[in-house]
């Protein structure tokens, strides 16, 4: 007698080791195969866009720390760029360079967690992520030096940054950039040709190029699918047009490509930081900005290449001290649009690896 089977619904999450936060994948399974998947959001929704309407322009900066809390510096940067565009504020050279250094350090820190967590999801439990946390710790120490915080930095200000760097910062940063390429080589030796990683990641969770563009994907997810698109090159902000760096891209858009793109981007970030350290000018780190900023009536959109993709802030001003509307283009949320297409037909374990390879941060998804 044949055994009769029927699909059943399994909730992965909201609290599950693979969800990187509080996120629910409502999967319909046929045995071990994912037939359908529906993402359920909102467990970390704090209404940051609404809260921003009640804060002064400067008071919104700490809120942006709590979006993608693995990349607070990048969030700060995108937001202050939007306010500066709206209010027409100029930024001193030195502050621009410091911003670039912080944003690139932040990219390395975020990618380290992304890669480590992805390998965790693939089953390389805890060993790779602990190596990567070892290096991220050095970056957090550097951030601690400049702003006294390890996670929610609140470092950038409209018109510059809050403090100049202390004397011990540049020697410590120099030590870091000299050692970091060696660490990345170490990961490569450990992982690049690792049989288990190749089997788990190659050809799994493919996001074709056309689909990646159509779903507005950004960052390593888009580049992993072979689209050479990076806001730092396509629409340079701050002083990014003064640095030489490459845009790594993948070919087929599988989990392995996204992993490779992140590893290569870390090398490029180190390159940018080295150039920025050489060119770092002296001078002020903050221009004269009134305590309460009242931008003229109007609107502005500023976007940056955050570690997870294009992060944009759309601000509307009614000439008061608070933004009339502060809309956030969150890359983590938009990158999840194709998750359903990417996991259907794969086994549960592959779905978890695919989800890990997208690299999201729930603070930014739910806002």
């Amino acid at each position: 007698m044949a055994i009769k089977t029927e699909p059943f619904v399994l909730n992965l999450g909201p609290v599950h080791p693979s969800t990187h936060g509080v996120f629910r994948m409502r999967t319909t399974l046929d045995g071990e195969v994912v037939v359908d998947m529906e993402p359920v959001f909102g467990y970390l929704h704090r209404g940051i866009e609404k809260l921003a309407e009640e804060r002064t322009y400067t008071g919104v900066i700490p809120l942006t720390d709590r979006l993608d809390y693995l990349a607070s510096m990048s969030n700060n940067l995108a937001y202050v760029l939007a306010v500066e565009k709206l209010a027409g504020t100029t930024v001193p050279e030195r502050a621009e360079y410091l911003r670039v250094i912080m944003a690139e350090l932040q990219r390395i820190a975020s990618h380290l967690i992304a890669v480590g967590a992805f390998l965790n999801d693939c089953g390389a439990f805890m060993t790779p992520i602990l190596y990567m946390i070892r290096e991220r710790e050095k970056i957090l120490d550097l951030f601690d030096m400049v702003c006294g915080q390890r996670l929610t930095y609140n470092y950038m200000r409209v018109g510059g940054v809050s403090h100049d760097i202390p004397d011990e910062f540049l020697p410590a940063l120099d030590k870091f950039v000299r050692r970091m390429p060696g660490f990345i080589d170490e990961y490569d030796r450990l992982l690049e040709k690792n049989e288990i990683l190749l089997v788990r990641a190659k050809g799994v969770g493919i996001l074709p190029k056309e689909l990646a563009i159509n779903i507005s994907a950004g960052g390593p997810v888009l580049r992993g699918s072979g689209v050479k698109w990076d806001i730092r090159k396509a629409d340079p902000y701050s002083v990014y047009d003064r640095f030489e760096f490459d845009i790594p891209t993948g070919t087929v858009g599988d989990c392995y490509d996204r992993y490779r793109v992140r590893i290569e981007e870390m090398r490029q970030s180190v390159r940018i930081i080295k150039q920025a350290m050489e060119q770092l000018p002296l001078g002020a780190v903050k221009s004269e900005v009134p305590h309460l900023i009242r931008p003229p009536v109007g609107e502005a959109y500023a976007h940056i290449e955050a570690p997870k993709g294009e992060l944009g802030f759309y601000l509307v001003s009614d000439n008061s001290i608070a933004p009339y509307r502060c809309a956030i283009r969150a890359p983590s949320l938009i990158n999840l649009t194709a998750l359903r297409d990417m996991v259907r037909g794969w086994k549960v374990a592959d779905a978890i690896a695919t989800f890990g390879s997208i690299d999201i941060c729930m603070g930014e998804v739910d806002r």
Partner: protein
Amino acid sequence: MTVALSGQEIADKLDKQFPGGIVESSQDSLVVNSEFLLMVATFLKDTPDLDFNYLTAITAVDYYDYFEVVYRLTSMEHNHSLVVKTRCYERANPTLPSVVSLWRGADFQEREIYDLMGISFDGHPNLKRLFLWQGFKGHPLRRDYW
């Protein structure tokens, strides 16, 4: 550098194609009559020298008199961008056509606007609240929500 196309110039081009479709235009953006939104969007996406294949973001703003929905379009091929807006004057049950059929990236963003701003999108495959739970009263991002 991404070139921000002049809303005015594009509006002149569109006005010939869709008489009455453009409400107003400025250097930064153009405002489309919501009935023409889908046609204009299709034209912007499929015309080779415009080729807006990438929908960067959608947002909505509540101006009390009307809701303004902002579409930020980018062409990766030509590296240019355009801001298209549309307005919705009804407050009780505002509805706009969905652009998910053109850019699937609109999927979650339209659901978010529906959830927080209360604008329905006609033709959306799965229009329900994104962040808040079913049965939640009101739409928090409206300016009159307290």
